[in-house]
């Protein structure tokens, strides 16, 4: 691959149609980024990682999609396997709400949480629509995939892409990856794999995802919000504040009514209380 140059947008194209679920990406990520191991999760499937979190920046999802009746070759449908990762959104929900400025866009156009700036408020966790970010309980800061920021600065591709044996994870300039992805989905359609589709390669999802996917089913099957649901937290600012403002006006009016009702009566009694307003109960 050509030199990795700052100023250019880099990302991943994760082609789930060729993912074999080997988890080499998870291991390589943990090794390079010195992420500790975690207690394995044992569920129904072959996934013992559980989810993306502070210690797992790549997570191979195993989605049981086995049809009730055998219907010929699987074509990647029996198990949907997908190496999930931070999407490095162009319009990033995490970055939008971060109050400290810890989440920045790097010179490689990736979304990066600066560990020395983050103070662990967890607002980004509440915002990320992909369940990517979690807080490291020892360091007390939010963590996620860095697109191997340190490796990029050293002109090396991210560890997961380097380790992937099937080229399910491809790294490169986003524009090149988009071209390759469109060609790939076109080839698959020509081969009759009509369920193949791209997710996040154009600007319909969060302005475009620098880490986008070729999926073999609806996005929601992979726990990815569809286009309608890919919305930013700030959408609720105006209605939220307007609702608060309306309530504030009513609260002040209520207070004024309470004050007005008690203004009419005659002077205080010996007990110190204001005598009742005989008219008050009639309103």
């Amino acid at each position, binding site marked *: 691959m050509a030199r990795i140059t700052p100023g250019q947008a880099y990302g991943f194209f994760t082609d789930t149609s060729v993912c074999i679920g080997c988890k080499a990406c998870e291991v390589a990520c943990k090794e390079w980024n010195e992420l500790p191991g975690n207690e394995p999760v044992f569920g129904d499937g072959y996934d013992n990682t559980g*989810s993306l*979190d502070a210690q797992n920046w790549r997570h191979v999802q195993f989605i049981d999609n086995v049809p009730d009746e055998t219907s010929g070759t699987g074509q990647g449908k029996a198990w949907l396997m997908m190496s999930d990762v931070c999407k490095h959104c162009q319009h990033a929900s995490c970055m939008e*709400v*971060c*109050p*400290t*400025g*810890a989440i*920045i866009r790097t010179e490689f156009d990736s979304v990066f949480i600066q560990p*020395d*700036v*983050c*103070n*662990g*408020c967890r*607002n980004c*966790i*509440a915002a990320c*629509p*992909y369940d990517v*970010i979690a*807080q*490291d309980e020892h360091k007390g800061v*939010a963590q996620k995939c860095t697109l191997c920021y340190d490796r990029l600065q050293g002109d090396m591709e991210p560890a997961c892409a380097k380790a992937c044996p099937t080229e399910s994870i491809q790294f490169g300039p986003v524009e090149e990856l988009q071209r390759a992805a469109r060609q790939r989905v076109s080839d698959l359609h020509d081969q009759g794999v009509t369920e193949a589709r791209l997710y996040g390669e154009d600007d319909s999802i969060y302005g475009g995802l620098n880490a986008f996917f070729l999926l073999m089913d609806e996005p*929601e099957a992979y726990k*990815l*919000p569809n286009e309608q*649901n890919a*919305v930013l*937290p*700030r959408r*609720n*600012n105006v*209605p*939220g*504040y307007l*609702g*608060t403002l*309306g*309530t*504030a006006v*009513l*609260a*002040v009016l*209520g*207070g*004024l009514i*309470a*004050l007005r009702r*008690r*203004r009419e009566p005659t002077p*205080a009694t010996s*007990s*110190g*209380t*204001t005598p*009742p*307003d005989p008219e*008050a*109960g009639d309103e």
Partner: protein
Amino acid sequence: MLLAEEVQHFVRSPDWTWFILFYFFFAGISGGAYAIAALFRLRGEPSDEHAARLGHYVSFAALLPCPVMLVLDLGSPLRFWHMMWNTTPGEAGFNFKYWSPMSVGVWALLVFGAFATVSFIQALVRDGRIRLSLVRRPVKLLDGVLGELVVAIGAVFGLFVAGYTGVLLSVSNQPVWSDTWALGGLFLASGMTASAALLLLLLRHRRSAEPSAAKLIVSERLYALLELALIVIFLLTLIPADAVGTVFGFPWILLWLVVFAGLLPGVGGLLASRLAVTGEGVPVPLQSASAVRSLAMPALVLLGVLALRAAVIFSIQ
């Protein structure tokens, strides 16, 4: 608008739990009590001055735990100041993002804290508890229009602090929280209810403020009605997202029962007596009122307000 079956949430909960619950509770009381105090001072009678001072004491006292709760909730508490100052190399400067309620809230809390402190000191001076001329002289400047302006601006910030916490929850991608626009108003209204109830509770210990008791009772009823209306709106806004069961289902319905119990004194009083203080139109002097009326009922209201926040915060985490 998305239909129920179309709404998707795949987020992780931020694990905002007890510290945040109590921050929301105290912020509501602090802001609400300041607003009530301001109304007494700006639109009340001279006899309401004592209740206004009580409001400022409550506002200040309720404000004190707020930053403590917020700091303790952070993963890195010693970096709390990163909320205000960006330490990114080459980007050093103040942090202010008007589109992030957490960022706005930090500054609002700071500014409101200044107003609450000034008004608290003013109340102490007026009560004769501070006699230092070094303090009394500048406070005297607040006796006129300037003082009214300070209280009015402080009340605006107080109302904001009481309500923005709900907007903060909504400006996320969390189920329930981001499916409604009513949380800001709901937290504000319940904060006002709690403040009026707490002031009523404390009137027992400040006889000079008793002339304002009737006004507080009526205020509490109106705020309870406002809170009830916002609970209904909150519920209605959740229907399109099919999220009603998430927050109102079992076991959270038990908390909502506490919430509704807390609304009973206010809404019940409004139904029974409307805007008169009692059915007979005669306010019962607090010192001779039953303990249930003057102690248990306000306490129930406060518990209800805490339960409301707990139901909203914990039901999705």
